[in-house]
Every structure is written in C-alpha cells, then in structure tokens.
C-alpha cells in the first residue's frame, strides 16, 4: 500500500480554505496524544490550553498583546515568502529594531514628550529595515543564500544586544542586572484599553494595507509574479533584485517595529531577552495564514493562543510551557502537509505498483 499523488487540473478552492483548519484539527489530535502520554486527560488538557484562555477578559487582552508582534512580523514574512524571498532572520531584525528604537530613551531618559515616541517607532522600524537590508544586499550583490545569512544575523544581533545591556547601556542604578533604565511616560506606547497597546493597531493596519497592496496594485502583482515564476517576472520587466530588497526592507521594518513596540510596552526596557521567539513563530503565522495578509491576522491570534495556553497549562496542569513550541512546530508540519491537498489529490494504492490491471 502506498500514497499516490495525482495532480489536480486546477487548485482546489475548497482545500485552499479548509487546509489550515484541517491542520489545526490534526494538531489538536496530536496535542491530545501528547497530553495522554504525559498522563493528562486529553480533553481537559486541550480545554485548559486552547479554550480557557478565551473565557476570561484579561487573558483575551493578553492574547491580543501577544498577537500584535506575531501579526506584524508574520504579515511581512508572508509577503517575502510570496515573493520566494526567504527571510528567516526576523528575530534578529526585531532585536535590532528594539535596539535602534531604544537609542533615544537610553541616551535621553529625560526626553518626555510625544515626539520621543514617534522617534522611537521610526528608528525602530528603520533599524529593522536596515538590518534586513544586509541579507538582501548580500543576496542581490553576491548571490549569497539569504536563508543562511539572515539566520546568522539573528545570533549576531542577540550577542550585540547582550553586550549593550551588560556594557555601555547598563543602568548604573540597576543593581548590576543586565538591563537599561526602565522606559517611562512618553517612552512607552499608550494603551488602547486594558493592557492592549498601540502595537495591536499597527498590526491591524499593516494587514489591511498589505492586503490592499497584494490584491489591487501592480507592486503586489510584481511580488506574486517574481515569487511564482521568476523567469516570467523578468519577461514582464520586473526586477528580481528590486523585489528582494523591497521584501527585506518591508519585513525588516515590520519586525523592527514589532521589536520597539515590545520593549516600549510589555518589557519596558532593554534586556538580553526581549522576545520569546516571536520572529520564528511568525514564520508559522505566515504559513498558517496561507501567506495572505488577512489570513495572517487570524493565524497570529492562534499562535498567540499557543503561547498563552502554554502558560495556562503550566499553571493548571503542571506541564512545562515549552509544550507551546512543540505545538507550534507540529502545527507548521500539518499546515505544510495539508497544503498538498490544494494542488494534489491523494490516493491510497493497494498492492504492487505497476501491476497490470486485467483487461475485462
């Protein structure tokens, strides 16, 4: 018995929509199995993990707070992957965004009017964009594989931040902890209600704007052509190099923005750890959203739920919150598997392949 793929004449519109849901269902089943293996009632486990956080206002707020960076980064990555540009260094761009955005509050802790927030946000986005431009440039100038270079830069950025907060930027009154001065007043993002801050609005705006760009404009068309048929893109007069740079600058800027938003809200200062791997989880967000900006919005909420569920599971079930990353990995696996159904029909073939079926 073996699996046979049969190419469909056209993409299946049903599975194009159903595949993320199917992937989610399969992830829940796998999650249930993990709970069973850990001696936890699977239904209870799944309830605590995926449902309970949605029943309380504070945890729904938390959900949105965590979804904001995931969506911001994920929507940028979705555009990249659509263009077949493999930026996987968003975590590094996030870090550099946080550092660049953090320059003003660290250097001028007494600067206290709305202008500093604007400066922080702009410099954060620019920091991420410029850091993203490095693998972009290396790709377009030297043809260096952007997957590897962008990833290497994640480690470099993390070490740079580590040096800053342990060295020149360390708060002298910080009891020797590796942290900068705590941001305050206008150095923090205003909230929209509860703990939800301006970052959520940015995320929403980014999705809507990119949905428009991808669906209605020539630039969006250019991105899609370059990604799915580069030769045809060149024939159309589109420049692949321009697209690579555009994608890296855009996704870098969004990741940088997410970075400065995190340190100007949830974290409130610079420290060695500023993100629980949002830059990597956003890769999953992009795929779960089927590289569609509006899909990314929902995918970001789901991935945020996986973080919050992990925390809830740790508290309620006494299981490590590291399970969140396991769920995220499994989810990406199932998404990629289910996407096969869009282009192929899957058949189970019994017996020996190639045996002649008897003629009647």
């Amino acid at each position, binding site marked *: 018995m073996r699996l046979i793929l*049969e*190419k469909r*004449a*056209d*993409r299946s519109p049903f599975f194009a929509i159903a595949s993320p849901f199917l992937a989610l269902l399969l992830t829940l089943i796998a999650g249930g199995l993990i709970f069973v293996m850990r001696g936890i009632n699977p239904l209870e486990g799944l309830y605590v993990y995926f449902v309970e956080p949605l029943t309380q206002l504070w945890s729904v707020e938390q959900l949105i707070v965590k979804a904001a960076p995931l969506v911001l980064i994920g929507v940028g990555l979705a555009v990249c992957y659509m263009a077949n540009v493999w930026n996987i260094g968003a975590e590094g761009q996030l870090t550099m965004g946080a550092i660049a955005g953090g320059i003003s509050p660290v250097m001028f802790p007494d600067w206290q009017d709305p202008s500093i927030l604007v400066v922080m946000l702009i410099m954060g986005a620019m920091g991420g964009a410029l850091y993203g431009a490095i693998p972009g440039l290396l790709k377009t100038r030297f043809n260096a594989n952007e997957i590897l270079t962008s990833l290497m830069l994640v480690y470099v950025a993390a070490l740079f931040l580590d040096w800053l907060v342990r060295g020149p930027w360390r708060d002298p009154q910080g009891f020797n902890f590796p942290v900068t001065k705590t941001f305050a007043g206008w150095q923090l993002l205003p909230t929209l209600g509860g703990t939800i801050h301006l970052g959520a609005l940015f995320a929403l705006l980014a999705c809507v704007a990119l949905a428009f760009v991808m669906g*209605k*404009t*020539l*630039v969006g*068309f250019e991105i*899609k*052509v370059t990604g*799915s*048929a580069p*030769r*045809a893109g*060149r*024939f*159309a*007069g589109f420049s692949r190099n321009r697209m690579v740079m555009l994608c890296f600058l855009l996704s870098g800027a969004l990741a940088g923005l997410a970075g400065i938003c995190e340190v100007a809200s949830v974290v409130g200062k610079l420290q060695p750890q500023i993100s629980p791997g949002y830059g990597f989880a956003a890769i999953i967000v992009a795929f779960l959203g089927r590289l569609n900006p509006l899909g990314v919005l929902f995918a970001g909420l789901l991935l945020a739920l996986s973080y919050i569920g992990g925390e809830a599971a740790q508290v309620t079930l006494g299981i490590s919150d590291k399970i969140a990353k396991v769920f995220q990995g499994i989810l990406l696996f199932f998404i990629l598997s289910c996407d096969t159904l869009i282009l192929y029909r899957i058949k189970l073939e019994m017996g020996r*392949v*190639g*045996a*002649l*079926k*008897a*003629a*009647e």
Partner: protein
Amino acid sequence: MTASQYLLEAIDIVKVFGTLRANDGVTLQVTPGQIHALLGENGAGKSTLVKMIYGSLQPTSGTIKWKGQDVVIPNPNAARKLGIGMVFQHFSLFEALTVVENISLAMPGKFDLEALSKKVEFYSGEYGLPLNPKATVADLSVGERQRIEILRCLMQEPKLLILDEPTAVLTPQEADLLFLTLRLLASEGCSVLYISHRLEEVKRLCHWATILRHGKVVASCDPREETAASLARLMVGGDIHTVRAAKAPRDGAVRFSLKNASLEADGPFSVALKNINLEVRGGEVIAIAGVAGNGQSELFDAISGERPLSNGNAILIDGASCGATGVSARRKMGAAFVPEERLGHGAVPVFPLSENVVLTRHSDDASLAERGLLNRGKANSIADRVIKAYDVRMGKPDPEARSLSGGNLQKFVVGRELDRHPKVLVVNQPTWGVDAGAAATIRQALIDLARSGSAVVVISQDLDEIFELADRIAVISRGQLSEAHPAHEMTAEKIGLLMAGSHEKETPHAAHS
C-alpha cells in the same frame, strides 16, 4: 506455442490520465528488422504509447507481447533486460556527469568506468558515432548528446530501438548520418520504432507506419506507397490549412536592426553572442534557423531586453536605440516578444489568463495599471478579445494558464502580443509542441502581421516551419548569425551547412568532434 512473427505486439492498449484517454485501444505490431514509424500530431499519444513499451508508464488496460509471450514491463530496467532501448526526445542525460558515467547509469553489471570507456570507444567507432567518454555532457552539442543516448542503447545490443522525434534536434546532414546508422541496425535484425511527425523522412526511412490520432490508431500502411499529403490527411484527420501569403513588399523601411550585438555568456552553461547583425524590413518575416543550444535563447533575451546589452546602439527599433534598455522600454517602443517556454516564461502557470494579460501589457498600456492600481476589468476584456480572436479553447472561464493545452496556451500567448499590433514582433519557436490546427492559425497570424507592415523575426528549429513562413532566412550557430538569404535561394542542405557553422568567423569549440 508457435513463435510469433512479431517481435513486439501492443494489443488494445488504453492509458487514462485523469479524464484524458491518451491511448484509447491502440494496437501496434512490429516485426524483426523493421523500421516502423509511429506517426501522429503532438498530443496524439505517441510518446505515451512508447513510454508504456519502455516501462516508464503502466497501461490502464491492454496487453504487451514480446516474441509472442505476454509480458509486464514494470520499469525501464525490465525493458532493457528484454532488449528494448529508447532514445528520448528530451534526452535522459545528466549534464553534470561525463559521457561514460551517463552510459554506466544505464548498464547492468560491474561498475568499472575504465573498462566501460574502452567499450564506448569501440562501439562509437563501430557505428560511426564519435564521442569522447571523458567529456562532460554540459559541454557537448545537442547532436553529440543524442549520440550518447543512441550509443547507450546500442551497447546493450537491443532487439528493439525506440527513437522519439530524433531528428528534431539535428542538422539535415546529421539526420542523414543517423538514417545510415538506423538502416545498418535494421539490416542486423534490430527493429526500430521511429516516432516522428516529419512525413518526408518517414517515407524515406520506414518500412511500415502506424498512424495515431487523438489516442486511436487511424491507419496502418506502407509509407513508401503513400504521398506526404495523404499521410498528413490521416494524421490530422482533414485537410491541412496551408498558410497563404502575398509576396513581401521589397521596399519596406528597416524597422528592426541588430548592429554588432554581442553578449557575454551568463555562467558555464550559456552561449556568448558574437557580433550579430540583422536588418528586418517592415512587411517581411525573417526566420533564424539553428540547432538547439546555439544561442537562440540568449539571442531572444538580448532582443527582448531581459538581458540588456552594454552598447545601446546595437539594437534599433524604427531607428531608435534601445540596446541598453529593459524589456518594458522596448515594449513601449512598439516591440513585442513571445519566448520559447510558454509556462513559466511567457505566462505564469498558476495565474488566470486575465492576470497573464497584465504580465506583458502593463508596460505599454497605462490603463491596465493606472497610478499603480490594477484594472482587472480592462485585463478581462483584453483576455476575452484574445480568446475570441485566436480561438483559445478552455474548460472554464478565465482558467489558470497551466490548465490549457500547449496549443491553446500558445495561441493565447501569441495572441496577447498580436492584439497590440506591434511594429516589431520576435517569436522564439512559435509552434513548438503545438497541434497542426493551432500551428496553422499562429503561422497565418504571423504572416498577416508582417504584411500589414510590421517586422517579424521567427527563431525556429523546425525547417518546415521556416520554409512556410520566411521571406529571408539566417542561421545561428555557436552564438554567431549568418547573413540572411532570400528563402527561395535556400535549401535544407544549405541551411544544414550553415547550422554546422560554415559561416562562423571563429570556431572556439572546433576541438570537440
């Protein structure tokens, strides 16, 4: 059981792909020592049938008999064990490997490249197929590559040799040599199954012909007793539209010219263009003949602007320089281009036809993308116009490009450009892999465009097509272009000599063969 008079019998073979019946009850019988033609249009099911005989595909139903015995051929290894060898149309070679490594991959038994090299040298002398066993395939010409394929089969001393469109990639002289080899083989008792749609060569070479149409056998006959016209009627199932052309005007102004156009090779597997000169007048069709891989795609890229030249004055459209500009600028100047590869170059496979209109038309038609916003209504109306004008057939409205048949997509891709009434049109392989009906439509449209005053350049490897279309013919070999001669002064032999490089000013690869 008595020995059968047939070496191979395929009886009532059916092969279904999805909803398509590629072979629908096909029966084929080959006797020992026979050169048996399998004739049919593109898409008639010839390749599908031989792939089943070679074990690459499995029939949905039907029987294959070898020397009178029922056999199942589960894979090509089994076919080779029976004594069936096959030369593929798109070669099954490995470019990064050497000749002897390529041959070794098809040989059973002990792995010893030294010994095999000696054997290769022996066989290549025996059959007049010169090859250097240590050469890397990527460095070889198309003709040499085909020699590897043939030699690889012959070294297993097959009883049946299948060749899929073998002359499509050869010069006429090389084809003659191939025929000598095949006749020699047949005289030694080896059967040959010869797939082609070239009627003249089938009449010259083959003892028997089985003709397929839409997956069914429509006739079985001795091609030497038929005329080319009667064979063609059987193949196409009706009269062939011959292209009608008024004489080209002699006094048209030069609309398109190449002046000492040169282009460096782009990486190790690419051909450099050297000092190419060409002038095309309004009203005429110029064909550029040549064997595959001699710089045609590089020439197309240079002309279209996908790879701009360093010298802007090397290309002129209506007297204006454009050698250094990109493809969009050249389209704005009134040029249009159709590349060889439909899917992935001329069209985005997963995009609907309407979006594929935007692909090439956005640059000269501002209304398609005003202030950067796509106008889908406009794109749809252009797509509809092209579909109607060129009879593009499809299963549903605005389908993805990849779901169209080769002929229909080609009509769309050519029609998309013709719809603009370009001043200059450059087409690479306009009817490659296209059925006769679509080919006739496309060729007629190209001639009509020229006669309306435009300059048309057709790059083609198909000599029949070239003679049907061209007012003048130039030949490209190893990146150099010959002078363009009036078509009525050219013969297949003359073109063949030019293809082999008789016009070349320098022969950097002379050491090869």
